[in-house]
């Protein structure tokens, strides 16, 4: 028995080995400054703030690529009769005799969707702000596992490399749409894009899912386990609630996408028939029998619908925070905001088949999904009214972040209203394959989430880089983008209602649609101008990192914990002990208070003039 017991030195040696990457809260080793090499500090960093910046900059690069692709296919849609010989130095063999290759047009649309939804608005948005804000706003030294967090970025990087490489292969990138419905995506002989491009797409997405899961479990664990003293769930900033629920959605839905992708890989490369049945290509019957392509759609949209909330909820959280800060008012209905986030999260899992009304599903089942879908209007409306009520009679400061947040609310309303239209099966069946759907989701999810992303960058840039972004360039960026987005997507509603079909390479063969030639030109011009306006932002962003006006610790007079850190927080975030939290995060313009904001870490004993009767007991 005694022989089994470890010796003293071994116990110490064993106990001294800490689990890799677990954030520690002992104060002892935080004031020590240990030199890190460039590689450790900027490349293979386990610091959540560096990882956040890595996600942000990779996301910006992807956004430029995704935007370029959309400009290319908007050229084709706006000027279908023109020749694009001038693009051939750039696109090479995809320009044939001055015409854009139709197969490549499909690839452009597919890659635009994939890049924007997954690489920019999922990884770029959640990856940046969940990483940056969760530890800073809940009062933690770092993520629960810095090592896993680092892996999360590098899986994303690897996935990015594979997806980027697929743009340059001979048969072109995946071209079956970002939803990769089989049989089109499953059969290499169907279109060139379903060959190697689709294989790389699937490999890249598998890596991406691993990255999302590694990041997601970290976010959830950190929020649950590492909150500072006094930071109860009912004192969390709404940003954290949003990131937390977003991570839960990802944890539950991405594995299902993985399941579907794996079956698709088996169908493509191993000869199974999960999704394939009774197919003839070029007069040849394929041997596959017994598969169900609709099954893929069910599996895909079980991820796909929560995915749109994974995209929008972080933006909602950040906008709530920025609106309250810059209206100098508490967020209206804090608990209702949390409740509506919970409601949206729950409902997001039981509405997926509203993407499939045109698959010939049983109309009764369609009615059930229609009913559940329309219920989402309730929590969404709660949020919208609360944002408006927060602005109402506020002492509004029009910072750039505030403009983008108000823009977010505007776009979310404009896009959300058409969601009520499309949620009805009877109307959706009519409009499903028109530009009305394109206009709807680009406003409510694409542009809104982008506005949330920009608002977040402008608002937290001082904490990220210790400098301010330029306000005037910010205004230029905002107005060009805001007007651009509406000028692109409002006309799309109109052509959509008129029946103009989406996914078409050219509509010139149909006389019916020739009357929309001018509008299409208009949309394309607006889209391309709005795209170029983004370079104002990109210049502002990179210029301000190095040359921006120096920031103070708390430039927006905000209440949350990240603003109690030094101008540029170092490793471990707070040089001393982590502040404890005494109050909710929205004490703005409290009657009787000395200043118009009271940070979360100020105890009630120091604010006796403004305490409410029930708060007096906590002095």
């Amino acid at each position, binding site marked *: 028995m005694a022989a089994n017991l470890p010796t003293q030195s071994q116990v110490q040696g064993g106990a001294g080995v800490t689990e890799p990457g677990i954030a520690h809260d002992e104060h002892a080793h935080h004031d020590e400054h240990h030199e890190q090499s460039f590689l450790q500090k900027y490349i293979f960093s386990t610091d959540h703030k560096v990882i956040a910046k890595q996600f942000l900059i990779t996301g910006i690069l992807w956004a430029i690529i995704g935007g370029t692709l959309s400009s290319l296919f908007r050229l084709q849609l706006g000027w279908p009769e023109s020749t694009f010989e001038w693009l051939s130095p750039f696109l090479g063999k995809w320009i044939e005799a001055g015409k854009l290759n139709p197969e490549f047009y499909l690839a452009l649309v597919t890659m635009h969707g994939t890049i924007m939804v997954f690489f920019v608005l999922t990884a770029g948005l959640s990856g940046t702000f969940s990483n940056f804000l969760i530890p800073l706003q809940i009062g933690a030294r770092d993520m629960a596992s810095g090592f896993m967090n680092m892996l999360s970025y590098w899986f994303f990087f690897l996935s990015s490399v594979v997806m980027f490489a697929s743009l340059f292969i001979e048969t072109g990138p995946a071209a079956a749409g970002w939803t990769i419905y089989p049989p089109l995506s499953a059969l290499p002989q169907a279109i060139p894009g379903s060959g190697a491009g689709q294989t790389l797409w699937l490999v890249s997405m598998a890596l991406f899912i691993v990255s999302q899961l590694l990041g997601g479990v970290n976010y*959830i664990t950190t929020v649950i386990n590492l909150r500072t003293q006094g930071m109860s769930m009912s004192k969390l900033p709404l940003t954290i609630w949003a990131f937390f629920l977003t991570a839960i959605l990802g944890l*539950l839905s991405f594995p299902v996408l993985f399941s579907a992708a794996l079956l698709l890989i088996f169908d493509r490369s191993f000869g199974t028939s999960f999704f394939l049945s009774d197919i003839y290509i070029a007069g040849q019957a394929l041997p596959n029998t017994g598969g169900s392509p609709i099954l893929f759609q069910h599996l895909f949209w079980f991820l796909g619908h929560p995915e749109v909330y994974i995209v929008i909820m972080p933006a909602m959280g950040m906008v709530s925070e920025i609106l309250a800060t810059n209206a100098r008012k508490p967020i209206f209905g804090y608990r209702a905001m949390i409740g509506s986030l919970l409601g949206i999260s729950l409902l997001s899992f039981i509405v997926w088949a509203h993407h499939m009304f045109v698959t010939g599903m049983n109309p009764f089942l369609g009615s059930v999904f229609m009913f559940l879908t329309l219920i989402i209007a309730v929590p969404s409306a709660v949020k919208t009214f609360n944002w408006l009520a927060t602005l109402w009679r506020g002492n509004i400061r029009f910072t750039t972040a505030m403009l983008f947040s108000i823009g977010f609310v505007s776009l979310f309303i404009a896009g959300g209203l058409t969601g009520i239209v499309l949620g009805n099966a009877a109307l959706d069946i009519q409009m499903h394959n028109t530009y009305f759907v394109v206009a709807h989701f680009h406003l409510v999810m694409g542009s809104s989430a982008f506005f949330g992303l920009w608002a977040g960058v402008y608002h937290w840039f001082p904490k990220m880089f210790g400098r301010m972004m330029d306000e005037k360039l910010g205004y230029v960026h905002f107005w060009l983008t805001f007007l651009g987005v509406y000028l692109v997507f409002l006309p799309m509603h109109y052509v959509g209602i008129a029946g103009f079909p989406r996914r078409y390479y050219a509509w010139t063969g149909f006389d019916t649609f020739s009357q929309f030639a001018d509008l299409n030109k208009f949309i394309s011009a607006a889209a391309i101008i709005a795209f170029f306006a983004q370079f104002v932002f990109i210049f502002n962003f990179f210029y301000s990192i190095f040359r921006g006006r120096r920031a103070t610790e708390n430039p927006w007079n905000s209440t949350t914990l990240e603003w109690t850190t030094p101008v540029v927080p170092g490793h471990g975030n707070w040089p001393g002990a982590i502040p*404890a939290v005494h109050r909710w995060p929205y004490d703005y313009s409290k009657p009787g208070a000395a200043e118009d904001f009271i940070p979360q870490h100020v105890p009630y004993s120091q604010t006796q003039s403004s305490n409410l009767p029930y708060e007096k007991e906590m002095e």
Partner: protein
Amino acid sequence: MHPSEALNTKQPATGIHPLRFVLVLMMVSIFMIFAAYTSAYIVRRNEGNWLEFDLPFGFLVTTLILAASSVSVQWAWFAARKDELNQVRTALIVTTVLGTAFLVGQWQMWAQLVGQRIFFAGTDANPSGSFLYVLTGVHAFHLITGLIFLLIVLRKSFNYQVHSRQMLSIGNVTIYWHYLGALWLYLYLFLLLNH
């Protein structure tokens, strides 16, 4: 008040070690994969053109082997609590061997299924067979990750890093291994009821 004056007596809110929490979350996401496959199985089966066949009897044997390995991993945990380090090592080795035996058994079942002309892919394959291979194959993949985890903890036990005051890793591997066993039990019962 300067932030550094604030108290910092923070404890993890749940009393669960963050790494264990991470493990639980990962188990949830693994379950979602199988929830997707088993619901896809039911949906697909109800569409007809579904080849019915008997599950090989041997699956019962592999199930019992995996159940036995759950017992032995629990034995390792109890032994670690009592600082019986030799027993910990023995029990972990037994668990690893039983886990490997389970995988070999599953492989045998695949061979037997092919003998019955139940194929994963190809012109003679029916989705009912393909699904069986996917369910067992994806489970086997996760069992391999469990075996790797067992070997890591076994190595730690030889370095005296597993004992009554360091129960985190052995606790985690015990939870994960029981989970893989329960997952297999779910899949086996599911296949028995729905094949």
